[in-house]
């Protein structure tokens, strides 16, 4: 039911993101790069889609609450065969379907996000629904560290813990940046792990680019402490994979030109070897 046979090779996924960002002159490249390994591990080993269908009634749910990273998810969905090749070469062309932020009209994208702090609550509702229906469906909600400035995240955290939604896992992409700069300098979050733990979550921090470590952390959280929702704090690098984009917040907004596209591809190829 999971997709162990597919590679979800991180440099290939990043190359897909670069190709489509270049084709569409799109922004938010760095936002996508920080969550590549997280998505690769989830799609490969944890998300169950019966019959490989994105809208199977009994699927697990991946809720991309940080809609800005959607190109990373498109890259994974391409590998699953859920999107046409045209969707990538024609990205952002007039009348095209794939938007610059997650849109639930696309099967495989569970929510319409981009306005931050929404997907967490929808995910809590999905997890509660699975409990009420007594299914074993799991819900993974991917949020940005900047996103957890939003109040509804903490409303939902209270609810998930109070109702012991052990089928709910929030994964925080802690890349240390938000739109205008460093999270530490804008609204200091302190220890995100401790915050979720204090709300009643079973929380673990992990290197968000180490796929083996991510895999073990997710398994560990799913197996232990059966009465708690889970929080996985993934320490990541915004722009990961292309050195000149890493920790350079300009790549939240910057569009690729011919030269930066070539340089980025060259950097990825070097990394892939």
């Amino acid at each position, binding site marked *: 039911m999971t997709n162990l046979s597919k590679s979800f090779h991180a440099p290939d996924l990043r190359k897909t993101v670069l190709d489509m960002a270049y084709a569409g002159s799109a922004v938010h490249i760095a936002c996508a790069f920080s969550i590549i390994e997280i998505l690769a591990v989830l799609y490969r080993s944890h998300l169950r889609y019966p019959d490989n269908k994105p809208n199977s009634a009994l699927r697990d749910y991946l809720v991309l609450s940080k809609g800005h990273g959607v190109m990373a998810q498109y890259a994974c969905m391409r590998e699953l065969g859920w999107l046409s090749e045209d969707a990538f070469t024609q990205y952002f062309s007039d009348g095209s379907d794939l938007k610059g932020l997650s849109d639930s009209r696309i099967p495989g994208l569970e929510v*319409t996000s981009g306005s931050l702090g929404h997907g967490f*609550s929808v995910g809590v*509702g999905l997890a509660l629904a699975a409990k009420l229906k007594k299914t074993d469906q799991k819900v993974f909600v991917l949020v940005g560290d900047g996103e957890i400035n939003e109040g509804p995240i903490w409303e939902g955290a209270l609810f998930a813990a109070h109702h012991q939604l052990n089928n709910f896992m929030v994964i925080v992409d802690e890349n240390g940046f938000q739109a205008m700069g460093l999270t530490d300098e804008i609204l200091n979050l302190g220890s995100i792990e401790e915050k979720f733990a204090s709300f009643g979550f079973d929380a673990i921090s992990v290197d968000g680019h180490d796929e083996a470590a991510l895999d073990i952390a997710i398994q560990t959280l799913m197996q232990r402490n059966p009465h708690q929702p889970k929080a996985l704090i993934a320490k990541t690098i915004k722009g990961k994979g292309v050195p000149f984009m890493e920790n350079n917040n300009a790549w939240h907004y910057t569009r690729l030109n011919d030269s930066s596209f070539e340089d980025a591809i060259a950097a990825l190829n070097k990394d892939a070897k």
Partner: protein
Amino acid sequence: MRAAFSNAIVKLAKNDPQVLLLTGDHGYALFDEFRKACPQQYINAGIAEQNMVGMAAGLAKAGFKPIVYGLSAFVPIRVLEQIKLDVAHDHLPVIFIGDGAGFVYSHLGTSHQSTEDIACARVIPNLSVYSPADAHELTACMEAAYQSHSAVYIRMGKSDRDEVHAAPLSPKTGDLLAIKQTPHSTLAFIATGSLSSTALALASTQYPKASVWSAPFIKPINTNQVIEICKQHQQIVTLEEHSVFGGLGSTIAEISSAHSPSHILRIGVEDRFSTHCGSYEYLLKEHGLDSNAIIQKIDRFLIPK
């Protein structure tokens, strides 16, 4: 109206286990019957309305039919973006109940009063807006909302005013309901919510040439019926315990201007918050919505130009 609401949600939940009631820690005694009859379908989401509506969307995506209850100052106003993005965008079957609309909380001030909710809800695609006037209309609105399998905002205002209907109704969604029909009437009153009973009383005592319609459905509304009313009457007065911007009056004026331009007086809350507190009747007076003030407005309107 509140007993009718309690009966309606108990009936829906008993007949359909997918129906869930979510409340943002409001509705103290209102849910006694529901909690007794369907305890497994009752969820107090805490004082956390934004999360409550997001969760309702998740529950609806998974096949449930949530009824989300709050005060209209909070549902839909505080959670408008969650309604738009999480629920309406995805055509999800969630019923939103905004209780205490208008000036019901007359002593509590602006925080708990809501005269902008219809306007805000009306502009959200895929979201219907109902505004019942009495228990019969409320019962019909609840049934229509459930049958619609889509997102509906139901505005519950002052609940203990006079009934405007004598018996249960089965209206077609969108229909305006004639509550006083006067042959060859030249003046039409179209009212919604609490002011339907005011309109009926005024027509009966002061304006013998007036016919009166109550509009429990603001969106969708039966456009052809509105056009017919506009064509058949020289003058139209709309009445609502809501801003004169964006509510029932605006709806009627929009339809009229496109299809049958009419002379329309929109009676409602002018563009202002309450200044003072007092009884409900006092607040209506402060806003010029008591009978005397309404008569003055109508009489000025009726003077031939």
